[in-house]
């Protein structure tokens, strides 16, 4: 049972990781907890659903959902965050993000109703056995796609021009703008990439669990934020590791401790980790300059 639960945990964790990446990237550059990120994830799931229902191939639908959320993420940044940047405290930006989050989830609830909507079984599922462990093919596909996206992101950040600009901005926004980097464009791109990953996460969750609903983003967003902090907020590999380990922790908590305390266990471990290692698993210790 342990190995099966581990795979359950990794599957759940990879969805957290995909959302956490968006949190961590945005945070790394503008120090904003983008609370609307969970809603972007929800919109991604729905966008994918609409495309699939209109008869598009799954992978094209996935791409479509990612592109849609890219635009949505950029739009949200343009309307709700950019006007605030520089002239106000981080807390007002946070409240603005909460406003966007409430707005987006209500919008979807008005459009689709609050019921949970079924996601069609687009990818056939079969179960196969490795030794005594049963694994579903869907889980394997989700793990593979997530891994692919994360590797892609790493390449993007490490090898491309925009990736370099993003890394520069995360070091020092002001200095980067003095060096001729178009900071607004980099931030926009960060939101776009983060949103696209969240959309992918949303659609895969939809496919795997066969269900989407307008309020799915709130708790998922919270957990993903926890995962980002756990991994070390601002660190991209940290978000991946944080997401995966949070997923595994939750599943193992249900499997071997108590399912009624599931959320409490996840958060308790998180708090413990922060106590022992405040910078998170992968975060770097930043000593404040005095």
């Amino acid at each position, binding site marked *: *049972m342990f190995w*099966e*639960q581990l795979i*359950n*945990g990794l*599957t*759940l964790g990879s969805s957290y990781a995909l959302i956490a990446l968006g949190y961590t990237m945005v945070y790394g550059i503008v120090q904003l907890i983008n609370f609307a990120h969970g809603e972007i994830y929800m919109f991604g799931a729905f966008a994918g659903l609409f495309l699939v229902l209109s008869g598009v191939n799954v992978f094209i639908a996935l791409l479509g959902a990612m592109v849609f959320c890219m635009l949505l993420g950029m739009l949200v940044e343009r309307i709700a965050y950019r006007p605030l940047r520089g002239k106000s405290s981080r807390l007002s930006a946070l409240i603005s993000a909460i406003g966007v989050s409430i707005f987006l989830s*209500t919008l979807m*609830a*008005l459009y689709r*109703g*609050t*019921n*949970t*909507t*079924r996601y069609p*079984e687009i990818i056939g*599922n079969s*179960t196969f056995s490795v030794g005594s462990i*049963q694994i*579903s093919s*869907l889980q394997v596909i989700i793990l593979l796609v997530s891994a692919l996206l994360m590797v892609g992101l790493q390449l993007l950040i490490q090898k491309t021009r925009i990736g370099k600009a993003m890394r520069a901005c995360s070091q020092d926004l002001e200095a980067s703008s003095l060096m001729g980097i178009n900071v607004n464009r980099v931030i926009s791109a960060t939101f776009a990439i983060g949103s696209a990953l969240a959309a992918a996460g949303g659609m895969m*969750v939809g496919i795997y*669990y*066969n*269900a989407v*609903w307008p*309020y*799915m983003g709130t*708790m998922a967003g919270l957990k993903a934020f926890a995962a980002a902090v756990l991994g070390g907020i601002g660190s991209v590999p940290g978000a991946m590791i944080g997401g995966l380990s949070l997923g595994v922790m*939750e*599943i193992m908590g*249900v*499997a071997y401790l*108590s*399912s*009624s305390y*599931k*959320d409490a266990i996840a958060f308790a471990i998180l708090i413990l980790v922060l106590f022992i290692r405040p910078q998170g698993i992968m975060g770097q210790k930043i000593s404040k300059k005095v």
Partner: protein
Amino acid sequence: MNFKRNKKVVLILCALMIFSLLAGCGGNAAPDKAAGDTIKLGFLGAKTGSVANYGIPGEKGMKMAIDELNAGKGILGKKVEGIYEDNKGESSEIANITTKYITKDKVVALVGDPCTGLTKVAADIAQENKVVIFSAGATGADVVEIGDYVFRNTLLDTVAAPAVVDWMINKKGWKNLAVITSGNNGYSTALTPIFKQAIAEKGGQIVLEDTVNDGETDFTAQVTKLKNAKPDALVFTGYYTEAALIMNEAKKKNLDIVLVGGDGLYGQDLAKLGGEAVQEKVIFYAGFSTDQPSPETAKFLEAYRAKYQEEPDMFSAQFYDAIMILAQAMETAKSTDPSVFKNELANLKDYPGVSGVTTFGADREPIKSPVCLLTVKGDKFPALLEKIPVQAK
């Protein structure tokens, strides 16, 4: 810092506040002139939020009943008016709305809420203000005990669950059972002990007890555990969404099992969400069935389908019945004063409603018969599996 501007903002806002309060007091000062010609009924239920699935069909049922009354001669010759606020499923909201209905709108009765917990909040306020509250959904404990203005017309879990457990163990031979509760769902946490007690009394075994949460979608860990525990059947006490998702996951994991639950599973979405995974695999009880209907129910079904182009559910039926029962009580009492017609209400006997035959016992608790065992069969939802008659306690 621009203090001048701040001062202006403060002044404007203060003015706004005072104005709004004055407007409110003004509204209060207007005497109850209008109250003479219409009878107002307040709807309690969520139209947005996570329990809106119960409120929305309820509202439709209530609207239909009121339209029918008004198409006839109303109640005591007066027009009936429904007021429909959305309580979002939050207790502070329902408290505000209930107070507003009673003090501003001057309703004579409140109909709702579908949830037990929220009904209790409203019932306390209604009882204090001596306004009748008629819940068309609260099935849990300690509701009518709040006071003599509190009624409900639901199939009580304490009546139905033992009957169903008896059917499972003695008729089907399912002795080893797993019980899953939705931990953040009041309905589910209240229903679980009733089921557990019945299982113990009828000689069943609980091989696994587990918890899920409403609003979650990942039940992989629970289903993996379930698979390892190998029960004969699964009792799930929560709502239909989670039931469908649990069954989906079971299907993915090649687990063939029957899920049995309460009327929280009664929702069109059970079939829509569960698809193949719930086909004849989910069984639940309810006091209402659109399959093999009684003549009253058949008439209601026809009218409902014509009006809304969709299938009614238990809540539409119970809200509809609630309005009709209230109307009948007011007619017999020849009064719209809650303190008068509540006595008529308490005497209700064998009312042939669309959601079954209802009698209020001496403790004002409803006795509804029969218990319908329902399932999903082909395109049909719900499909009647069996009717189990229940005796009054």
